[in-house]
């Protein structure tokens, strides 16, 4: 049964009372600010490198959606898993993957996470339990449930965050997966990142369903809608979802209402929405700005403190860009490696 619904709209600019974040330790708020800013600046740099021709093909930026992954990572524990679609840079940075390795993969270099053979849409990190990076819309959903299947089988109390968008939410395999995930009580959090546009098709033009998370009710899966521009709301919802899964109660759905400022990919002129709509979001709902205000109004940080963080992030991002240019292209021999595994992987 579907249960609760948190407030779906972030408070308009200036109406958010300062007490909201006042019970949150300063370090925690600073952490969110820093993590979200890293994603924002990284993505801006990626956009720039794309413009310079250093990144090719498809490149889907995460700008605007930063609070989703940063909030949920705050609810995760070591060993929990995550998997997502091709709009994956934010997820990788949020789970602690090295910005250098991510950027070098974007430029198709040897130092990239997949040695340059995966690209923007196909990156993985076994170490950080990041299982991709999937280019087929919706395909990561059953795979994510499969990771949870393995965790349940191995009885290791881990939870898998399976991210997908409002577009993927119309794929049949999502519902095949809901059915089995609930049937087998798999510890998986289905995270619908509803950024309101599946490429150029708005949610209103693709479904009559009033909300996406409520579709889980047909399978008996609990869920809720979350304000995805508010990192604190995302974290709280994430904790409820994780607790549900960790207690062995099966899957949980979070429909996180978010917004991407950029086009679907770098080559999308985004003519399906007005410039004013985007600007309004940026001005009134920006997730980084919200935390910035909490930090300043709550006297958790000074402008100087935040400038220092900005500077640190800028350096990390610039270093990643430098690395991604200096790392050589993969050796031609790499064309023929990693097609078949030679040895049996460690048996669990």
């Amino acid at each position, binding site marked *: 049964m579907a249960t609760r619904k948190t407030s779906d709209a972030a408070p308009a600019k200036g109406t958010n009372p300062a007490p909201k974040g006042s019970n949150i330790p300063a370090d925690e708020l600073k952490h969110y600010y820093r993590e979200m800013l890293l994603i924002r600046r990284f993505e801006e740099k990626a956009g720039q490198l794309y413009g310079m021709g250093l990144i090719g093909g498809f490149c889907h930026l995460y700008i605007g959606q930063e609070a989703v992954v940063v909030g949920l990572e705050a609810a995760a524990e070591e060993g929990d898993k995550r998997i997502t679609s091709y709009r994956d840079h934010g997820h990788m940075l949020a789970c602690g993957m090295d910005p250098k390795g991510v950027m070098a993969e974007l430029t198709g270099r040897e130092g990239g996470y997949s040695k340059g053979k995966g690209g923007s849409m196909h990156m993985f990190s076994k170490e950080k339990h990041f299982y991709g990076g999937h280019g087929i819309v919706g395909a990561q959903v059953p795979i994510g449930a499969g990771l949870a299947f*393995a965790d349940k089988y191995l009885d290791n109390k881990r939870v898998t965050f399976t991210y997908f968008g409002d577009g993927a939410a119309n794929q049949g395999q999502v519902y095949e997966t809901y059915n089995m995930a609930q049937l087998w009580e798999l510890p998986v959090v289905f995270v619908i990142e509803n950024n309101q546009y599946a490429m150029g098709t708005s949610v209103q033009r693709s479904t009559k369903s009033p909300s996406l998370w409520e579709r889980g009710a047909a399978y008996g899966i609990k869920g809720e809608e979350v304000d995805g521009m508010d990192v604190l709301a995302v974290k709280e919802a994430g904790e409820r979802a994780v607790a549900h899964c960790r207690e062995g109660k099966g899957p949980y759905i979070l429909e996180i209402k978010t917004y991407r400022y950029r086009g679907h990919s770098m080559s999308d002129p985004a003519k399906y929405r007005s410039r004013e709509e985007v600007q309004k979001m940026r001005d009134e709902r920006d997730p980084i700005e919200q935390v910035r205000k909490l930090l300043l109004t709550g006297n958790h940080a000074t402008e100087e403190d935040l400038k220092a963080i900005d500077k640190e992030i800028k350096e990390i991002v610039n270093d990643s860009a430098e690395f991604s240019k200096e790392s050589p292209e993969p050796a031609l021999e790499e064309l023929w490696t990693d097609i078949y595994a030679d040895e049996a992987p460690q048996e669990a």
Partner: protein
Amino acid sequence: MATEILMPALSPTMEEGTLAKWLVKEGDTVSSGDILAEIETDKATMEFEAVDEGTVGKILIAEGTEGVKVNTPIAVLLEEGEDASAAESAGSNAGSEAKTEVKEETKAKDTLPADVPAASSPAAAAPKPPRTPDWPEGTETKTTTVREALRDAMAEEMRRADNVFLMGEEVGEYQGAYKISQGLLDEFGPKRVVDTPITEHGFAGIAVGAAFGGLRPIVEFMTFNFAMQAIDHIINSAAKTLYMSGGQMGAPMVFRGPNGAAARVGAQHSQDYAAWYMQIPGLKVVMPYTAADAKGLMKSAIRDPNPVIFLENEILYGRSFEVPVLDDFTIPLGKARIAREGTDVTIVSFGIGMTYALEAAEKLAADGIEAEVIDLRTIRPMDTDAIIESVKKTNRCVTVEEGWPQGSVGGYISSVLMQEAFDHLDAPVINCTGKDVPMPYAANLEKHALVTTDEVVEAVRKVTYK
């Protein structure tokens, strides 16, 4: 330091564009995300945003300029406290960063080895298995059906490793739609013999995820016809991940079930997928004929660290063969079997095609034509050495399969022989295949749609000119 704003590439193929409109002017302060200009590509007009904050010091390319090459400096951005003179000097160093990039790229390419071996596929380059018998001479054997052999193989491997499990429709309580999993639920319980709803796309994806997560799934498709619902996960998710992850993770698992025509089940249930899966790098494809091969290859497939497609056949399930009585009998993937030795022609087949190949060989022997029959057993990696070796002796080759002719396994074998054994061929290779039609239902038409023993005999007569 003043930074140059470069003409961006705004699509995967863009090389130049029109600077349609500036939305800022010199002296304007901008911050990241502000729209600076509109740029027309061949496909669309795109907005171009600022990445850094600063003041627009100088606009280098006027609006309306067409054919502006990607990476040309179009403006100079000043940082806080800089004046316009910084813009001048930056402008005169035009393209420094961009040009450096290009240089570096060229350099990187130059340092690559000039002649990389025109490597054959890694599948072909795999170590050659020795041409030894599958089991030691004198080993006791037991008459076993293919059905029992498959079940025994799975049971032995499930006893051997806790992370091996079977999932699929009706594999548990029903004991298998074709009784391949008979008894497994009783022995291993519902945790390891998992009945799924009818949801091929979904459970194939879940199995791939389980493989990523450290398990060794065996996925039973009630028939491979239904696996078409799941083929995206087989190919895009299972076969390609090892490569896409730079070797970090893959999907060690088996997709198995009956493949090809059964009897009178019509077009949607009667297709041979050997040639389809054979094409995919990252997959291994097995299609056994005998019970011993079914057992030995299934055990190897379950242990293999790669995704393996295991193509069975409903008609063969009930056939009996001798299987060696050994504690741990395996057959390596990628090794063909000489099913019958001969000198006059090489007949290559696999799976149920072997039925026609062997029958034809018997008929031909009565007429004094000695056929060598090769059972490929594994379609990928394919033991082409075994075929070539045999053709060097017989100088003639006929292939036999139930699948369709265009893009067939036999077609691939013909091309290998053309390229690697052309001088040894005394006749064109003939591919005996199923007819190029969807499978009809009528008994007489169905029989005709499949390859027949007479067609194989006829093909051999043609290539031997007898």
